[in-house]
Each structure stands twice: as C-alpha cells, then as structure tokens.
C-alpha cells in the first residue's frame, strides 16, 4: 500500500460486500519477446500472454504479501511496515468489512468467521490468482487469518502466515479449557481479555467510543511497551462496526472449540509487552501446526505500527525461506512428545556452551524436543558433534562448534558465524563451567585462573559476543547464564568455585536490569547437586587422595539422584517466562530462601567441614 489512503481497487466479496484493496511494491511485466532479423517475433517463439487478474492488471512475478489488520484499525495500521517491505515485495492490504473504506454488512451474521475467511481468500484470488500469497496479520486480522489457513479447502492458496498478537479462537478455546500451560496463565489471559465481556454488552461499548472515554483508555493501552506516538488513523465506524466481530464469534468459539489444523507454515511473532495477549496462548498453537515457529520481539500490541523493523525482518526471512523451496523442518517426535510441548521454543535458535555433556547437553536435547535448532558449543569437539547429531534427529538443523569460551576472539567469531548461518539467536545459554573444590589457600594459581577463565570469563565472553546483536535486532531474545547454588551458599569446601559463580549471578542480575529496556531478558540458573559427572572432571586440592575423594563425592551426587535430564526439563520450563533466578533442586531453593531469611544459618553452613 502506498501512503495514499485511496484504495487501488475494490474486490467484491461472496456476499456482495465491497472490500477496499491497496497495493504497493514492484509489479514487473515479463521481459519483451526476442525478435528476428526483420524485427518480427518468430511465431514459434511467441511467449504466452501474461495472465491477468480479475481487473485486467498483470500480477507481479515475485511473491505477494497480503496484510490483514485488526480491531479497531483499518489498513493504514500497516503504513510503516509496507514502506519497509514494498522495496522487495508486492504488498497488498485491504480494509476488513466494516472498517476503513470497505462496506459493512447490515446484519451481525455478516461478521461470522467463515465469511471473514472467505473475504481473505477472495482478495488473495484477486491479487495473486496464479500463486499462493504470504499472509501477515495482526490482532483480529490474525484471528480471521488463522481461521482461513486452518480451512482445508483454502490452505493451498497460502504460502505462509505470519501472525502478530492474535490466536486462532478455537485453539484459544482449547487452551482455556485444558490449561496446558497452567491455570496461572489462563487467569493472566482472562485479565487481559476482560474487555471482551465489555464489548459483548449491548450499547455500553458504543457509548464508550462515542463519548471519547474508550478512545482515551485505548490511547493509554497503546503506550504500553513503547507504543506508537503517532495517533492512529481511525474513523468512528472502525470502532463501532468492529464490535460485531466479537459479538458474532467469541462466545461460540471459546465455548465449543473445534479441532483446526494446518499444513501452512506459520510463524507467530509475540511482542514482549502485549497488553492483550499472553505468549502461551499463541505459542500453544504449535499443537495444531505442522511447521510452526515462535519468536518474541520488544514492543507492545501495536508495534506493527510504531516499530515494524523486527516484524519486517522476520517476515523477510520467513518468506525467503519458503520461496527458496528448502525442505520444511519436521520434528521427529514420539506420539507422547508431540502432545507434551507447546511451541514456546519452536523454530528458534539456541546457542548453548558446554553442550558436550551434563546439563548443557541435556538442555540441548530438551530444547530440540521443543522445536529449537541448537548450536552446540564445547571445547570437546566430538562431544559437541554428538549433541548436535542427536538434536538434529529430533529437530533438523542443529550444528556443533568447537570453541573455547575463554577465548573472546573465538566467541566473537562464533557469534558472527551463528548470525551468518542462522540469524540472530533467540536464546543464548552460557553454561560452560568446571568444578574446583578444596581449601582456597591450598588452590594452585593455575587452578584459580582456570576456574575464573571458564566459569566467569566464559560467561562474559558469551554475553559480549551475543547480547549486542540481540539488542540491535529488536529484542525478544533471552540470555541464560549458568551460575550455581554455590553463589549464595558459601562453603569452606569450594571458595574459588563459589566466587566465580557469585560473580556470574551478580553479573546476570545487573545485566538483567541493563537490558530490560531493550527487550532482552537475562536469567541465572542455580542448579544444586546434579549428577552430571562434574566431580569426575573437577580439580581438587587439599582434600587428601583425589580419586578416593572423587568417588565419595560422586556417590553423594548419585545418592542425591537428581539427573541432568530432569534439571534440563525444569530449566526449560522456567526460562519460558524469563525469571531472574532459576533454582533447580530443592536444596537450591532452600538455600536461596535461607540466604534471604537467615544469613546466620548460611554462615554456619560455610563453616561445616563435610566428612569427605
């Protein structure tokens, strides 16, 4: 759509409504036919005449993007995004019935979901009769587009679908009834959706919009997450007619949801500060979509209007991938696994250091099972390759990198390589670390330097290599640093180790504050006693005969019985919501609580000499 507010054409819907359609971007005619020596076109080489759409226009040779707006917007909500995308694509948007310059049905039944999906297909057929279109939709536009792509007879008309801030109502109905992400998230969504009940009441919402009260409230909500400073170009009819969308569809879809699936590739883009949607109700759609990706970006509900760059970046990458014809990623899950996970990590890229063993390796497997592509980083190349190989057998596309995290130049090179091959990662887990135990005064300088280099500088190098690109790309990513319960549980047994982990925890908490405004969350993981084999590889000093001590410590870890697989599951569940600290085992939880409630108890623990 150009900045012109006049529609370029009208498309007549199946029930006679007229939909205003806007287009922008290159419309390339095919090259002229070659001629012979006399300037005539040889008949045998006459090219077929270019196909024309229903209005006699030659459609573009490149892909067409079709944009569907939400409520209470009209097609002008896309102006900034269209300005970005029109340089490369034929971009079409239209005013949904009742909004903008489209006509409005007289009866509420004219707003039923099936009719809205039919409008979408009609516009797609009109603007790109010969090839499927790529859909981008926001809010209510996304709701109706979800309905269209999950209709078997329509799906072949759509090459891909990028959804911003709008679920399929049937999927949402299942999610609300079954609460796969917990009752807490259902309640959070219920609070955010409370306006739906208000919109369903007769007369009141109309009065709110006409009196200006509704507009003032909406202006406040639009500012959440750094929303648009430019006022929206909306007309009163946009506010009033669109209410029928809620009244005609919401109740029946939420109370009697049907099973709606699709083979159309879908990517969901979730703003970090969406006033109306929790992430889980959108990511859970992975249950119903063969090829699903989920990405977060910094912004509020109307970011498509104010800060479209992250959306444009994801759209370009997605469309180019689909147009390239590269094989679609398919997860190789058991029947149970397919039922177990939503899509919170689906289609994402996760870089994990120390991925050759222990929690790092198990977290790689866990995230791969949840749909992430893994870049497995370890100083032990065969171990990293093995991790990546198994991850790729769950979700294709993982790779391994042999990198020493203490080498900042190598980490910078790793980050550049990841960006080149995968794009900016959604998740970076600085996990590599080693154990050092024994009295601090008996530790060798070499051991101290090694533990500081790996445990602390490894995290610092990881953050410095990846955080800038994560900020620059529009936020939404997560950094996870593996600290330890030792960071708040001091002990005479592991002074040097505790120092490095306390530094990691302190860095993570400070960095969390620093990056909060930039849309990148930082989480510190404090595992506790996890039977990873860390003791076998730890440096011990001043603790008697090393192998005997290691046997005793290993037995302690084995008796504790907390496996790295279980730890990885806990960590993956926790980092979905981006908390500040993730204590994993019960002793990590208790230690954290005691460090806050009873410092004296912690001081006493530090003096205890275990019989090792």
């Amino acid at each position: 759509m150009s900045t012109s507010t006049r529609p370029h054409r009208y498309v007549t819907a199946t029930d006679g409504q007229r939909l205003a359609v806007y287009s922008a971007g290159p419309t390339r005619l095919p090259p002229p036919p070659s001629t012979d020596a006399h300037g005539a076109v040889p008949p045998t080489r006459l090219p077929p005449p270019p196909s024309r759409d229903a209005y006699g226009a030659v459609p573009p040779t490149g892909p067409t993007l079709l944009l569907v707006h939400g409520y209470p917007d009209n097609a002008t909500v896309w102006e900034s995004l269209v300005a970005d995308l029109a340089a490369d694509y034929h971009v079409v948007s239209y005013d949904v019935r009742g909004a903008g310059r489209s006509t409005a049905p007289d009866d509420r039944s004219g707003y039923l979901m099936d009719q809205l999906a039919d409008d979408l297909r009609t516009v797609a057929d009109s603007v790109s009769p010969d090839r499927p279109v790529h859909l981008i939709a926001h809010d209510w536009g996304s709701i109706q587009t979800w309905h269209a792509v999950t209709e078997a007879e329509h799906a072949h008309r759509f090459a891909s679908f990028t959804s911003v801030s709008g679920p399929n109502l049937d999927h949402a109905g299942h999610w609300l009834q079954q609460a796969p992400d917990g009752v807490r998230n259902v309640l959070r969504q219920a609070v955010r959706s409370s306006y739906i009940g208000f919109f369903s009441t007769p007369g009141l919402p109309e009065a709110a919009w006409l009196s200006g009260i509704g507009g003032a409230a909406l202006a406040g909500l639009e500012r959440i997450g750094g929303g648009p400073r430019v006022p929206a170009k909306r007309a009163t009819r946009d506010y009033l007619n669109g209410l029928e969308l809620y009244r005609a569809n919401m109740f029946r879809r939420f109370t009697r949801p049907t099973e709606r699936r699709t083979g159309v590739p879908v990517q969901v883009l979730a703003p970090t500060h969406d006033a109306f949607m929790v992430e889980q109700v959108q990511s859970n759609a992975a249950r119903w979509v063969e090829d699903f990706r989920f990405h977060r970006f910094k912004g509020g509900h109307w970011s498509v209007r104010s800060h479209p760059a992250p959306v444009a970046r994801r759209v370009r990458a997605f469309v180019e991938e689909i147009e390239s014809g590269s094989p679609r990623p398919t997860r190789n899950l058991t029947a149970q696994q397919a039922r177990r996970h939503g899509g919170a990590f689906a289609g994402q890229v996760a870089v994990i250091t120390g991925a050759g063993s222990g929690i790092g390796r198990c977290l790689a497997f866990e995230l791969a099972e949840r749909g992430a592509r893994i870049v497995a980083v370890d100083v032990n190349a065969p171990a990293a390759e093995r991790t990546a190989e198994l991850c790729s057998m769950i979700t294709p596309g993982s790779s391994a990198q042999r990198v020493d995290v203490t080498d900042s130049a190598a980490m910078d090179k790793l980050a550049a390589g990841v960006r080149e091959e995968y794009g900016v990662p959604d998740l970076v887990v600085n996990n590599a670390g080693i154990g050092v135990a024994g009295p601090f005064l008996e530790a060798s300088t070499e051991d101290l330097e090694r533990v500081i280099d790996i445990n602390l500088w490894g995290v610092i190098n990881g953050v410095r290599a990846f955080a800038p690109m994560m900020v620059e790309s529009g936020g939404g990513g997560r950094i996870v640093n593996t600290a330890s319960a030792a960071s708040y549980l001091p002990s005479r047994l592991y002074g040097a180790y505790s120092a490095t982990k306390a530094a990691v925890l302190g860095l993570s908490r400070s960095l969390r504050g620093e990056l909060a405004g930039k849309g990148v969350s930082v989480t510190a993981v404090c595992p506790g006693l996890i039977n990873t084999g860390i003791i076998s590889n730890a440096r011990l000093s001043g603790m008697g005969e090393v192998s005997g001590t290691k046997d005793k410590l290993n037995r302690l870890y084995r008796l504790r019985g907390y496996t790295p697989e279980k730890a990885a599951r806990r960590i993956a569940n926790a980092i979905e919501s981006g908390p500040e600290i993730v204590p994993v085992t019960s002793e990590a939880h208790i230690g954290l609580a005691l460090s806050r409630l009873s410092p004296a108890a912690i001081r006493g623990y530090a003096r205890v000499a275990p019989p090792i």
Partner: protein
Amino acid sequence: MSHKKVTGNTASQAELDAFRELQQLAYQAASDVAASLEPGVTEREAARRVREHLEARGVQDWFHTPFAWFGDRTAFRDFRVPLQFFPTRRRLEEGMPFILDCAPVRDGYVADIGYSGYLGENPLHDRLMDDLRAHRRLIVEKVREGNTLQDVYRAVDALIREQGYDNRHQVYPGRVIAHQVGKVESRLPKAIVAGFGIRSLQTLFGDLIVERAHHRSPLWADGDISAHPATPGMWAVEPHIGFRDIGVKFEEILVVTSDDAYWLDDDLPHVTRWSQRTLSDVGSKDTAAPLTTVGASEETATV
C-alpha cells in the same frame, strides 16, 4: 546358575544347546508378536500374546511372566515402584516404541530375552538400536579381560553417557544389568507370585545366599558386592539405554567360563539387524568404542 554349583562349573554342550534353543524360541515369540502389534493394542494384550505363543510351544513355567512396555514406559520414565513394571492398559499408537521382555522355563531350562521395536519408522530409534551394538561388544570384552562386574557396569555407564543417553537398567530392582541363570531344579509347585515363577525364585534365592557367603552376587550391579570378576556360568545380560521417551534393550545369555566369555548365540534379531546395517558412528563400530574420558569437556557447574 544353580546354587548346587557355586564353584562355577560350566554347563555341558547339550545343556548349552537346550538353553540356546529356548532362547531362540523366546526371541521368535517376541518377533512374531511384535510383527502382529497394531495401534490400539494394550500392553496387557501384547504380553498375553507372548505368553500364549510360548505356552503353545511347550513352555511350562516362567522365571518371570512376559512384560510389554509402550511409549515412554520403554525408558521407565517416572518409575518409582516395582508394580509399574507390570503391563498396563496403555495403548500402542503409531510412532511409539515398544519392548517385549519374557523369561520362559521349559524342562528346567531358562531363557530371558528383551526385544525392542517401534510402530512405524523412526531414525532416532534406529540410532539407539545401532548404538546398543557397542555395549554388546564392550561387555563381552571386558568380562573376557577379567574386569570386575562393577567395573564393567561402570564402563557401560560411561559409554551410555558418552553416547548421549542415560542408563535405564539402573531402574530395575537392585539396579542390575544382569543376573545369573541356570537350570531350575525345585520341588515346589509351578506357581506365579507377583509375576515371578516361585520355582525360579527359589533357585535364584538359593544362589543369592550361597554366592553371598562367597562375597559374590548372582545379581550384577555397580555396588561393592559386584566388585569381583564374573562367576563362571550363564548370565542374562540386559543393557537398557534411554533417550527422551525412547528406551531400547536386548537381553541374552552370556556364557562365562574359567578363561573365556562369549554370547550363547549370535543368531538373534538384534545381531542380525546390526550385520545388515552399515554403521559408522560413535559406538557402532565392530570393536567397542574407545571410552574416552570427557576430561576436557566443560561440564555444567553445580554445587
């Protein structure tokens, strides 16, 4: 082995042939039932089919009645009490792994086998099955070298970790990877208690008492009681590896003599399968994979 022969006499060739024949019969039963499994069948139904198949072919008693595990139960996920080993009403679905495990007794001879399969196709399941091959070679080589059972157990554990999997035989009662078997000689009636034949249990407990007196155990695990080389006789060995929701195992008899160790039979479904596949990765070579210590690996740090 029978506790009357704690000095470790090896069975005669005729007896070995009888054990081999019964093991073949048990694997044939598992293979036939596996081929008959369809979506919707329950673990109980699958176990019943194995039982009927073998009873129709002369099996009179059981060391333990047939087990069937579907889905993540093949990896014993969230198993906390022994009752969870018994077949349930869980239904098999397309895309589910399964394991059939049975231990028939015929004319006093015992077999104890485990058969892993998958309903549909899954490269990951194939990979786990391929990687089991290294464990079969590792075990026999380590036993042949005279290592203690405890050390062999730990070597298997290390290889499992190196491969990226986790040890699931540690979930069995006693964490056993193997147990001794021998001819069942008992005057007790044929009866099943909690899934185990009481005549076989009597033999096993007898062995347990006598072996303990010699500071050994007929149960092979990683405790200090297994810190001795394998006692000559026959051991039913069952390395069981797990990855996510998939568990795979084999179980077959290892014959240990005073100076050697060998598998009773190489003509078994999993061995045949390996010989038909081209294997080239970790733990899938014809010789046991070297057990590298991941000393240089950067482990996740924990308290």
